[in-house]
């Protein structure tokens, strides 16, 4: 029994952990993560997008979860309850959002509790059916009665939004204790740091959050819309503007395909729909293809010279010569070897001049690029902490998994601030990068010293929803 296994208890004093079966909920724009505090990865990851299925005139069914969103059913609309812009309101449709979040928890983690067979109504004679129904309804309302809930929120939210969040959790889900943590701060915790400058490249927004002593510096938070979805949009623009426009055909459209040579038009047989799926569904499926493209092709320009300044083609060819080929095949069989085009979509994150534009998508503002966000964030912090922050740049978010992102960011930062030592902490583990704020919440929620931080139901009832402003600083 010398090696620890599942039967050995970790010494509580070793890590200060004291788990109370808290649930951590980390709602992002693309996915919603939920899981038990103290675990390594979220058990439940569901897309934040949901489906609205019009069954009949008045009957609308909401579909949650990955499994129910990819059927090409007519009249299935795909929506997102969150706001895609950088506003402080965060959530557009609270009603659906709370249902979605509840689904993300209850579908995997804390389902409806199985009641004691003595009084669950099943074994009773049928004479008092009324009471059973009431009991069942009570149970349904209080799905999370057993577990404290730690929820994350973007680094910049209005107090109204925060109050709405605690209302949803305590009144809607009946959690005994609640806490609202900033995702930036929690991401810093996931990197094991209490002082950090967190650069979070998410789906809808890129956020730069200075964290000092585990606390957010509100004035230093910078949010920009140049993030994963922006890169997707850039890819669309790139496809549209190429010499032979690339048709972005989602998987469900293709019935069968034949292999074709590189760059040759596809020879696919498309599916015919009597009533084609909705536009939003198609876009959702296209995004799926684009995500694949981003994951496998898109990279950042990590060499000297700016793309917007016209990097000589020879140099860029040199740059791609020794790299492995980035061939991407569309669902319809069309395939291409992407060289310079693989660095163009993401370049706009760092250099607004290199961004692709059209009439609907104007050039991004220069202050929204990541280097300028960091510069501006540092500028609004106290002078004394700036070198400390530069020394602890934590890079998280799935958008930061773009190849050479960290290298490029380091180049930019060193070019900006040569004096203080710039040190970037980016986990090599993709899961830790994608779910950083959830992991940070998991660490925080399982700490023994965190127990005094929870906002209990009693406190909420005493002080009202405003308590979240006082306690979750």
């Amino acid at each position, binding site marked *: 029994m010398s090696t620890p296994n599942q039967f050995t208890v970790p010494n509580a004093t070793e890590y200060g952990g004291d788990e109370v079966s808290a649930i951590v909920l980390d709602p992002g724009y693309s996915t919603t993560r939920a899981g038990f505090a103290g675990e390594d990865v979220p058990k439940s990851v569901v897309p934040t997008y949901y489906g609205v299925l019009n069954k009949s005139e008045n009957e609308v069914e909401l579909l949650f979860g990955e499994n129910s969103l990819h059927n090409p059913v007519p009249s299935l609309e795909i929506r997102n309850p969150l706001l895609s812009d950088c506003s402080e309101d965060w959530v557009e449709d609270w009603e659906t959002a709370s249902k979605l979040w509840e689904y993300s928890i209850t579908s995997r983690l804390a389902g409806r509790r199985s009641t004691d067979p003595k009084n669950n109504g099943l074994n009773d004679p049928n004479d008092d059916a009324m009471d059973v129904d009431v009991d069942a309804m009570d149970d349904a309302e209080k799905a999370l009665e057993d577990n404290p809930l730690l929820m994350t929120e973007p680094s910049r939210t209005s107090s109204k939004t925060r109050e709405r969040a605690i209302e949803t959790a305590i009144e809607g889900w009946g959690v005994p204790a609640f806490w609202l943590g900033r995702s930036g701060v929690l991401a810093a915790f996931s990197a094991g740091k209490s002082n950090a400058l967190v650069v979070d490249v998410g789906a809808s927004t890129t956020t730069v959050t200075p964290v000092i002593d585990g606390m957010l510096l509100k004035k230093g938070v910078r949010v920009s819309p140049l993030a994963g979805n922006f890169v997707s949009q850039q890819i669309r623009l790139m496809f549209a503007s190429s010499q032979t426009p690339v048709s972005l055909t989602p998987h469900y459209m293709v019935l069968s395909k034949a292999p074709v040579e590189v760059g040759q038009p596809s020879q696919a047989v498309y599916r015919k729909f009597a009533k084609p799926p909705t536009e939003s569904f198609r876009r959702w499926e296209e995004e799926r293809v684009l995500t694949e493209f981003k994951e496998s092709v898109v990279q950042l320009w990590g060499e000297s010279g700016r793309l917007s300044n016209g990097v000589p083609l020879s140099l860029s060819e040199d740059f791609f010569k020794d790299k492995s080929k980035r061939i991407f095949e569309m669902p319809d069989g069309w395939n291409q070897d992407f060289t310079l085009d693989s660095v163009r979509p993401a370049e706009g994150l760092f250099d607004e001049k290199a961004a692709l534009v059209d009439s609907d998508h104007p050039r991004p503002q220069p202050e929204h690029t990541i280097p300028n966000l960091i510069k501006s964030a540092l500028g609004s912090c106290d002078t004394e902490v700036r070198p400390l922050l530069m020394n602890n740049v934590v890079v998280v978010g799935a958008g930061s998994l773009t190849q050479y992102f960290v290298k490029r960011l380091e180049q930019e930062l060193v070019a900006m601030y040569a004096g203080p030592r710039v040190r970037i902490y980016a986990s090599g583990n993709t899961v830790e990068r994608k779910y950083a704020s959830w992991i940070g919440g998991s660490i925080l929620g399982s700490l023994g010293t965190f127990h*005094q931080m929870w906002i209990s139901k009693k406190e909420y009832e005493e002080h009202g929803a405003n308590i979240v402003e006082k306690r979750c600083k």
Partner: protein
Amino acid sequence: MASRKDVQDIMGLPAGDNAVKSAALRRPKALPAQKRVTGINREILALHGDRAPPISIVDSKKTYRGKLHRDYRPSKWERRAFINPARTDGLVLRHWQQRKAPKPTNDAMDVDGQTVEGQDPDQPEESKFAKYNVEVTVPTYDDATYDQYLQSEDWSKEETDYMLNLVQEYNQRWPVIIDRYDFPKSNSSPKRSRNSDALARPQDRDMDDAEESGGRTLEDIKARYYDIYAKTMSISTGGPFNMNEAEFQLHEMLMKYDPETERTRKNLAWMLCKRPAEEVREEEYLLSELQRIMMTAQRFEAERAEVRQRLEPVNALGSAAGTTAAATASSYTALNQLYTQLATQDRNRKARHRLSLASTDLANSPAMPSAGLATPTTATGHRDSIGGSGTKKGAAPPPQPVRQLSPRDEARFGVTTHERLQSGVSFRTDKVVKLRQAKSQIQTQKIGAALTELGVPELISLPTARVVEAFEGLVQRVIKLIESRKVVEKEENEVRVQAALHKELVPGDKEGTEAPEGEATGEKEKEKENGNKTEAEGGMEAPPAVGGGEEIRPPSSKGNAHKRSASVLSAASAASSKRSRKR
């Protein structure tokens, strides 16, 4: 591992059937003729021979696995409720804990927490993490104290209270406090202008944090807080004189806080941070340069110190030697000792020089003459002697000097240039001794006598380059002096001889007039005789003796024809004079 069968075998018991059956792990040696091991190639099995295979061979067909056996009982765990005393609302949370003692009822294990809580006879235990709940103490005051001592023009009481609350809430984390500081300003216009005047902010500061936090900068807030802290501390302890050491120190520190200095310091620090890369690189370069120079200077200083240390005892000895002759005699042993000491030091130094020559920085250092050059001199000049006696000091500089030094600097650093260097090492003391020695004993004695007359000690205690040079000149002049003295003596002798001759001849006038002629002719003849032999000497023959008869001839003139030294000549002339005197 002895199986049961082995034991039975040793004890001579018949092997039981069950032993065979139970052996899932089989060694070929153990049961040679028994059951065949399955699940492994026969050939591979044969490779093992009689030895046990390195891994245990388990029959893969046998799927039955025995029950997991543990020699302990699994501990009982329960989801126990606890409270955290740091909380005021008594929130009950539950965590999994090992059950301490067997409970009388099994209901305590009920999953439903509410009932456990209600029925549990003893109160929920307290969290052991509550002890980490510590808070900072901020100064407190009542209204009277505030009015009397803590009034400020800039700060209203409300804002002071707000500030102190914030400091307590954020545990004196100043960067966070200034971030959250948001006191609604009513009469801030004069202050704001004051601040903007006082703050010489860098131009490119993106955000004006002072403007955002109601005109307050972090330094303002800190100054106010420290001021209040110091004053309340002073009031509570009863003045600085009643404080203990720690309190007094803290008080002093608080009183000394100067927001302006802090502001300047921070600005400077930030300017330092945001320098362009070239400046940073330049600074790094300069720093490394400085470090190198410091190191060289240190080494140089150490060498100088060593030389000084070396000179100390010699000077003492020299002064002692100069006073009395006895001291000179006794100092020989001391000098001997010193010599050996110096020799060892020199050896060490040489070794070190070899090391330092390897490092390139020495070659580049401006303070040191280049070690890569052919000049064997160093800053201390102690190795001048390496050039031997043939070295020429202060000769014309080499055609391409690495660095032109002024004569003063050359003298200072002991730089000398030589046209040609002799290989090998020689000591200046040797040179000094050689200079003293002439070719003949008499000459040597004469030089020694002359030097003694001049007060030059027999052993020059510190033969530096300059001293040796001077000594060489001196010896040469001494030699010249001795030669000229010899000539003078000879001339005087001749004059005397001639005078004596003259006296003798004056009575017989005829003889007297003939004699010189005869002598003169005799001389000429003699020269003719010896001409062939002496020609090679290039007329270096001694000045011809004047006077003397035919019989007067240098007895050793033939044998000593090759000798050029004055002593020979003087000896010859002395002999001739003797003869002439005899006559």
